[in-house]
């Protein structure tokens, strides 16, 4: 029987030679992830599963990133709860603020903790990011995280898939963010509900790993269970460079069944923006340029990687942040922060009038470090623009690429690079 890439990974982890869409399987887990928001709830549930210890202390990753560095006493209490659990359980992959910290979905690939062929759950919806390295990876809630930490396995309904065939090459200033926003605009925020988004086609070769991380990251914004890329030379090189475990390469069968197939021509994509209050509410930046803005956020698990910072700096082209605009730059991991500093990017940002923050999810989910007041508008490289996402219910978030964000920061308006 022919299978999609996702189905093959699930079959391998369920100890089956084949699975079909709709089938319920129990699958072994290679990694269980949680953050400072979701882990405390999971820790509360964990004892009920009857295990004193987590199934494998090397296969749990706990990342304080959402409200860390602690934004208030309650957040500090949640981080302390997670820190104590990590210590008590001997969890190897606990990442402390400062030391080797970062926003979870930028951090784990960087640390070599995810590899091709893995089956991963994380109590964070953007766990689907690791599809970029050819893993099956999906977001769950805290109870599922607790059960996964206890048992080392969990059940899945095998998803059907949408095939997204990518061809051509990006034009200048167009990136993975524009592709995924365009795709979400095309199929809607529930267009891939319960399904895999499986990427294919010659155009993938032209996508950098950072592009792929951004694209897979936002699969959830189309409702997808996961987004996944085939494993190619670029991917293998990345995995080797980051000391990841040996990849297990699964390729979709040529005759695998898909619910539908879409084609995206990279040459035709233009800088794209999602207007409030849904990621699917997309427009071309050139059609919407000129909208006055109050804030720009460059960062997050979607677009806080080194190439994103480079793109934003390039689009700013040495110009200062426009008067009256706050531009907040948040390198996604400590390592990215250090590399950006050594490259001189952080100095460029600071001299241009940006705030440069330590890694945190912070404003992306309206936590802190850049909350919006009533009526304020923000161009952000983040992933959601729901009502109240970054602050007041009458504030507005416009999702865009780092290049558009950089260009907008210096223009003081939504602008094309």
């Amino acid at each position, binding site marked *: 029987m022919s299978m999609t890439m996702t189905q093959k990974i699930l079959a391998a982890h369920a100890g089956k030679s084949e699975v079909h869409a709709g089938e319920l399987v129990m699958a072994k887990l290679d990694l269980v992830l949680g953050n400072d*928001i*979701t882990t*405390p*709830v999971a820790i*509360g*549930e*964990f*004892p*009920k*599963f*009857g295990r004193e210890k987590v199934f494998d202390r090397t296969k749990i990753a706990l990342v304080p990133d*959402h*409200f860390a560095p602690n*934004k*208030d006493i*309650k*957040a500090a*209490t*949640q981080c302390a709860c997670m820190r104590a659990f990590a210590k008590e359980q001997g969890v190897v992959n606990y990442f402390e603020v400062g030391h080797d910290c970062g926003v979870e979905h930028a951090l784990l690939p960087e640390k070599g903790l995810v590899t091709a062929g893995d089956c991963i759950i*994380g*109590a*964070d*919806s953007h*766990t689907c990011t690791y599809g970029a390295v050819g893993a099956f990876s999906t*977001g*769950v*809630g*805290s*109870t*599922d995280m*607790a*059960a996964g930490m206890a048992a080392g396995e969990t059940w899945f309904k095998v998803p059907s898939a949408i095939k997204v065939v990518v061809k051509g090459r990006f034009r200048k200033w167009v990136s993975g963010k524009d592709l995924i926003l365009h795709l979400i605009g095309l199929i809607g*925020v*529930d267009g891939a*509900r*319960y399904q895999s988004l499986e990427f294919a086609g010659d155009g993938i070769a032209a996508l950098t790993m950072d592009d792929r991380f951004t694209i897979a990251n936002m699969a*959830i914004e189309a*409702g997808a*269970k996961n987004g996944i890329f085939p494993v190619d030379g670029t991917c293998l090189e990345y995995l080797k460079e980051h000391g990841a475990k040996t990849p297990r390469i699964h390729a979709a069968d040529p005759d695998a069944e898909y619910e539908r197939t879409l084609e995206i021509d990279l040459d035709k994509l233009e800088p794209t923006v999602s207007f409030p209050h*849904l990621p699917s509410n997309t427009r071309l930046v050139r059609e919407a340029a000129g909208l006055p803005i109050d804030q720009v956020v460059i960062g997050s698990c979607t677009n806080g990687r080194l190439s994103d910072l480079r793109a934003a700096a390039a689009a700013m082209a040495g110009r200062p942040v426009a008067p009256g605009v706050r531009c907040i730059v948040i390198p996604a991991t400590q390592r990215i922060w250090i590399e950006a500093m050594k490259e001189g990017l952080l100095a460029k940002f600071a001299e241009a009038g940006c705030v440069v923050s330590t890694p945190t999810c912070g404003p992306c*989910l*309206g*936590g802190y470090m850049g*909350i919006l007041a009533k009526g304020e508008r923000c161009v952000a490289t983040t992933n*959601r623009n*729901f*009502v*109240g*996402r970054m602050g007041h*219910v009458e504030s507005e978030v416009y999702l865009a690429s780092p290049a558009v964000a950089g260009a907008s920061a210096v223009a003081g308006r939504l602008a094309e690079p």
Partner: protein
Amino acid sequence: MKFTGKVHKFADNVDTDVIIPARYLNTPDAKELATHCMEDIDASFASRVKPGEIIVAGKNFGCGSSREHAPLAIKASGVSCVIAATFARIFYRNALNIGLPIVECPEAAEAISAGDAVSVDLDTGVVTDETKGLTFKSEPFPPFMQSLVAAGGLANFISQDRGCESPKAQAGSRRLSP
């Protein structure tokens, strides 16, 4: 399990950020979360909602974040059941895992209006709009899932199954106890 209650109606794509805004996620306490339930889409919801009342919404209810705090907040606010045309995947799983009854029924979601008196029979999947005199049929959950929901969710279900009554398990169940 059967519920009857007055309906609070919402549109499509109710996301977890409006169900429980992230600014309140600095606590896992369900009762505290409930005081902010639906705050960014209906500021007075938490003060108006009465025990047993029912939420009816359009498609893709609970899209966005994986925060289990969303179904926890709804459950702790006293809502007995959520009926929607469709649910986002993670919310669907989380709701069952914490024992919040949900019913997927596009026809009911379309026809029922705010303020209607609605009854839900989880065993049969039948939804009745008593105000309008309409009946809808949804796919009932299999018995094990009904037991799981009745137990208050996955962890309690497994804990009961094992007869686990250790003090540690009791401490762990504090948050979910009714």
